[in-house]
């Protein structure tokens, strides 16, 4: 049970890092995520079936997600559309695109095909159980991505992204075009989300166009749960708590799935529970008097 929760927490944690970038750092509530998550899964699955190099496939998934994010940012920048609407537009269009990528199917199974995960278990089959091998692999992958993000947000470009969400006027006064920064930030976020989707497809053994339903909300809930765990202004801690929040959120979902029947809950109620978790988090933060930057 614990390995399952940790695993899911880590795999989806990569997605939550992406959601954290848009919602918290850029102050750009981005709903593209619901489309870019299955986009990553679809690209990965299709390339695996074609026998493409697995590392390359993952890179293509990242680029696909990045471009999806750029489309949202472009719609918002050039047509002066509110960011929420821009995200919904891209997400809706991605649904059709994802089905095309999956060769006009809604679901593509990845059973008995070689994936990154089967490679990992093969390599470690002598000394580690399959579950532990995959768990350790994802600890390494997620922490590596977290570390790279920490590094990125220490660079001059990363810092300007941080300032953009807080004070767009300052960015303009410093002679930087905020539109370019949004392109980079939203792109990066969706690139991470697509990587998360690519791994989720390999872990679950299939890619499905509906994989992304409610992903943004799950991500946001994870971000907010994480914010109760640690308080800090240091990026190293902020990204850490995103991952911890993701694991805790998956734990709560796990409890709901396996022990929810005790209170007559079915798996269909999980979305309701996720929404209520967010509302609860908002209420608690209000009562505590923290100022949150979630804009309607």
């Amino acid at each position, binding site marked *: 049970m614990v390995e399952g929760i940790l695993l899911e927490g880590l795999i989806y944690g990569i997605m939550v890092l992406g959601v954290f970038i848009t919602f918290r750092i850029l102050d750009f509530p981005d709903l593209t995520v619901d489309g870019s998550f299955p986009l990553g899964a679809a690209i990965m699955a299709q390339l695996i079936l074609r026998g493409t190099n697995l590392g390359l496939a993952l890179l293509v998934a990242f680029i696909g997600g990045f471009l999806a994010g750029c489309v949202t940012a472009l719609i918002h920048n050039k047509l002066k559309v509110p960011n929420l609407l821009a995200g919904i537009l891209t997400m809706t269009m991605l649904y059709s695109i994802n089905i095309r990528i999956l060769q006009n199917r809604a679901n593509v199974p990845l059973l008995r095909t070689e994936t990154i995960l089967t490679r990992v278990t093969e390599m470690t089959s002598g000394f580690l159980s399959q579950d532990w091998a995959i768990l350790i692999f994802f600890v390494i992958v997620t922490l590596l991505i977290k570390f790279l993000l920490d*590094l*990125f947000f*220490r*660079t*001059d*470009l*990363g*810092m*300007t992204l*941080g*300032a953009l*969400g*807080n*004070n767009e*006027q*300052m*960015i*303009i*006064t*410093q*002679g*930087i*075009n*905020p539109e*370019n920064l949004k392109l980079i930030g939203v792109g990066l976020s969706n690139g991470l989300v697509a990587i998360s989707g690519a791994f989720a497809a390999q872990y679950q053994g299939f890619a499905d166009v509906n994989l992304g339903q409610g992903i943004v909300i799950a991500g946001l809930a994870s971000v907010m749960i994480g914010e109760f765990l640690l308080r800090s*202004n240091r990026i190293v801690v902020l990204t850490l708590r995103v991952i911890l929040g993701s694991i805790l959120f998956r734990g709560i979902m796990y409890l709901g799935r396996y022990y929810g029947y005790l209170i007559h809950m079915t798996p269909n109620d999980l979305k309701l529970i996720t929404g209520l978790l967010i509302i609860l988090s908002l209420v608690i933060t209000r009562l505590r008097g923290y100022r949150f930057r979630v804009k309607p």
Partner: protein
Amino acid sequence: MIRLENVSMVFNKGTPNENLAMKEVSLEVRERDFITVIGSNGAGKSTLLNLIAGTYLPSRGRIFINDRDVTRDPEYKRAKYIGRVFQNPLLGTASNMALEDNLTISSRKGFKGLKISLNRARREYFREQLKPLEMDLDKRMKDNVGLLSGGQRQALTLLIMALSRPTLILLDEHTAALDPKNAQVILDLTTRFVEEYELTTIMVTHNMSHAIKYGNRLLMLDQGEIILDLVGREKAELTVDRLVEKFHTIRHQTFENDEVLLSNDSDE
């Protein structure tokens, strides 16, 4: 170096709320000018600054910086030569980031790459720059800017602006949101930076005595026009009474209450 040629600005054109905020204004700002701008609410002071900065693009007319036509350049492009401090102290810095991060972002204008430029030498340099503010900010480099007072933030914004060595600085009532003591500190700092970095300055103020005391040139705006432009000796010999008198002779009208037009609160 900065030239406005017959610049007009119309807001809400073609609607019942149409408003001609700037009427055929021409202005030549010379290098090292320190211009103070006064005028009543709605006279066009902020519109003038916004037009120069590029926040608004003019409805008619042309704007030149160093003989380059920048009329159609967006704000972020012009920001490479223009420094700006707003009335709201929160607009100059990012509250959720450390002081040193704010300085890193602002120490060079324009798009930034993937370099990590904040290192020990850089921190030392920032600390040296912060010391003269005499606010002990050099000891708070890792604090979030949101923890600073309005006066401290405005001082920081001024410093940031000065460090980038802009061609022109625009100060939009930058002391109006501060208490009298802090306002004086910021004004003193302003004059010091203007001297030290040899900045060309346009300062909008609500305070007539400040407008008279500071700078070498004074502009008075009314209903979208520059009605008075005093330089050198004329400006130096100005008093509050003489200024009010001049306004009346130009406009041939007396206001019921001059305080509405020009506040003469010396401690504002």
